[in-house]
């Protein structure tokens, strides 16, 4: 699966959360980062090039700071100019159909405020309806939003969890069952660099993979017995 991360942030080098996310992205040919303000500092978007780029990817993520319940202006301009009739929607406009589409939002306010009774009143799902509508209109599958609340207040442990969750949002298949997450972790353990491990721990990585697989066999076996007993 190939993922395009379309970032819109006017001051990306000043943003701790964006820099953290950028450095978390796995170095892989199947992931491309596309920072709009970096590519188009004069806001003159090359529409044909953007449309060509979109066609090459299976998952498209919009990553931006949540400004006044929406994206920074260049991403809105990009949508207006790139997602055209005949390309993204309308008769013969099926270029995006069947792709996955998701949001990666950095938010400055705590999560619990985004609900009825909270200071922001509305949930992120309510506030991002226009993006969900874009997915519907263009025939893309809308993914669960990946929202980072108050990055500067995160502990080191929370940041490490964020790093892995974000990598999964970018590279893992959308289903988030335990079995799917096992597969992803196994794949990562198998390619983690040996040189930064303590001597001998490369064997531990293999052992961990074997154990995760054994546990999966146990879970599947138990499920079979339970299904049989409950049928």
């Amino acid at each position, binding site marked *: 699966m190939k993922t395009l991360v379309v970032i819109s942030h006017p001051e990306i080098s000043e943003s701790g959360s964006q820099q953290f996310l950028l450095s978390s992205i796995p170095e892989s040919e199947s992931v491309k980062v596309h920072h709009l303000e970096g590519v188009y500092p004069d806001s003159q978007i090359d529409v044909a090039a953007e449309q060509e780029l979109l066609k090459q990817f299976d998952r498209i993520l919009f990553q931006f700071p949540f400004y006044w319940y929406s994206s920074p202006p260049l991403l809105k301009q990009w949508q207006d100019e790139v997602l055209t009739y005949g390309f993204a929607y309308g008769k013969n406009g099926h270029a995006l159909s069947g792709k996955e589409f998701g949001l990666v939002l950095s938010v400055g306010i705590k999560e619990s405020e985004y609900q009825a009774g909270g200071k922001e009143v509305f949930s992120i799902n309510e506030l991002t309806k226009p993006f969900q509508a874009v997915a519907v209109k263009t025939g893309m599958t809308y993914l669960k939003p990946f929202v980072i609340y108050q990055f500067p207040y995160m502990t080191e*442990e929370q940041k490490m969890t964020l790093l892995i969750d974000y990598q999964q949002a970018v590279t893992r298949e959308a289903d988030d069952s335990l079995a799917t997450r096992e597969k992803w972790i196994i794949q990562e353990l198998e390619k983690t660099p040996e040189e930064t491990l303590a001597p001998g721990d490369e064997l531990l990585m293999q052992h961990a993979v074997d154990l995760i697989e054994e546990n999966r066999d146990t879970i599947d076996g138990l499920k079979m017995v339970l299904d049989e007993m*409950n049928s």
Partner: protein
Amino acid sequence: MDQNEWMIQELERAFEMSRDYKQKALLAAAKRLIQEQTVRIQQMEGELDGTLWSPRNWSE
């Protein structure tokens, strides 16, 4: 100590020894995953135990 407990401790040790931030994050995630599997197995074993003792099956 069972294998999962042992592995969790080993992953904690490897986490401390690793010299790469992303690798540390992965080792911590692998530990959490094995903990989640352990809980899942315990829950299913518990359910199996409950099913075996269920009055529904007494008459069979």
